[in-house]
């Protein structure tokens, strides 16, 4: 797989939500199988605490998209910031938690980035060159296997509890130190920075 896999984290006033580690666990499994690099992504007005919480996890980088416009949450600011980052960095796959907040803005992001979007995924498997994502349509009465029709950018959102936060492996050898550049003025677009790998 060409570009990196991005695991988009989500925070509340109490800090990083545990669902973020479920997304990282899925990202680690996919990255291992596909031979991709994995980046944890923080979107915030001040991402330092979330980045610190992610530093010990086994990821290749912690990418912080930091902008005053990202607090409080609005779908427009989040969409603009991540669409800009996706266009600049071309990740192969962008993983989200299927939270209420993600449902509010990620479809707009998919439209903005002209991306394929498979939502509310419960599992995945890799068949040769194809990654299959499993969903539960018909209100969970049936399962369906879904694949992307194009090369990307492609987006997946993960059902809460489908992957285990405890499975997000740590990297005992090193901590990933994000390097952030902050924008002081309010802007509808995001600034990005990444840690040296």
């Amino acid at each position, binding site marked *: 797989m060409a570009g990196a896999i991005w695991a988009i984290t989500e925070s509340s006033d109490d800090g990083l939500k545990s669902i973020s580690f479920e997304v990282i666990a899925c990202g680690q499994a996919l990255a291992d199988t596909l031979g991709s690099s994995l980046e944890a992504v923080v979107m915030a007005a001040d991402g330092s605490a979330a980045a610190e919480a992610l530093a010990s996890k086994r990821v290749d980088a912690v990418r912080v998209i930091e902008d005053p416009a990202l607090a409080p949450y609005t779908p427009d600011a989040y969409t603009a910031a991540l669409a800009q980052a996706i266009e600049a960095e071309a990740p192969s796959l962008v993983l989200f938690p299927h939270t209420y907040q993600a449902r509010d803005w990620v479809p707009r992001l998919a439209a903005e980035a002209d991306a394929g979007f498979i939502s509310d995924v419960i599992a995945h498997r890799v068949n040769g060159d194809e990654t299959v994502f499993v969903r539960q349509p018909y209100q969970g009465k049936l399962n369906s296997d879904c694949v992307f*029709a194009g090369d990307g950018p492609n987006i997946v959102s993960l059902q809460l509890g489908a992957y285990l936060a405890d499975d997000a492996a740590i990297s005992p050898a090193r901590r990933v130190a994000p390097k952030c550049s902050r924008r002081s003025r309010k802007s509808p677009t995001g600034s990005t920075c990444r840690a040296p790998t």
Partner: protein
Amino acid sequence: MKIAVCIKQVPEGEARLVIDADGISIADADLATEINESDQYALESGLRLAESQDGEVVVVCLGPDRAEEAIRRALAMGAARAIHLNDAAFQGGDAAATARALAAAIERENVDLVLTGLQSDDAGWAQTGPILAARLGWPSATLIMEIEPEGDTIKVKRELEAGWFQWVRLPLPALLTIQSGISTVRYATLKGIMGAKKKEIAKVTPADIGLAPDAVGGAGRKTRTTRLYVPEKTTGAEIIEGDTATAVATLVEKLQKEAKVL
């Protein structure tokens, strides 16, 4: 206020689902259908707004011939007229392809507000509404529980997680996705049912709304369903051994990590 309400015809909640020979869809034969539940609440919200704001509701539906039954019901409930995106080229699309078609149809209507359900009871993507808003270039808000028009803006109550709510104000035109259960959906009266027979249903093809056939439906999708199947059911019981403290700890771990109910 002119309001477009997007509805989808889906299998009834108790309908027996038979997987079609194509392996990726539900067989149409003898399939009991209804208007998608959250779309019914979107329709009810639209009708109430139209009644209080001296407006009208235009129903927009993408679906095959049989979807006319759902459209007639919406008209019987009080919608003024309907647009039915009904062409073989529209079929087999994902949320992106469906939203592209709906946007092209709604752009021609000069509406102030679009309402959709939160998500469909069949595909359940929870994507079509916000993608449609992005295609129209309009603001959107999801999981809406209350709507208060305020001049050329609209104030809405959103449901958040963990029992929280949020009030948001959006400029019009805008799109809202409506949560189920927020009101009492009206029944179609006999007079409404009779009147619906005379109301206009405009049948629309891709060419009518300026789209190439390969931009919509199966040809325009960005994702593909390769198999639809009944999930494997696992049965059996497990005896957890050990003293009470150990057994409880093991049980809690299994409930968290295997059953995922805690």
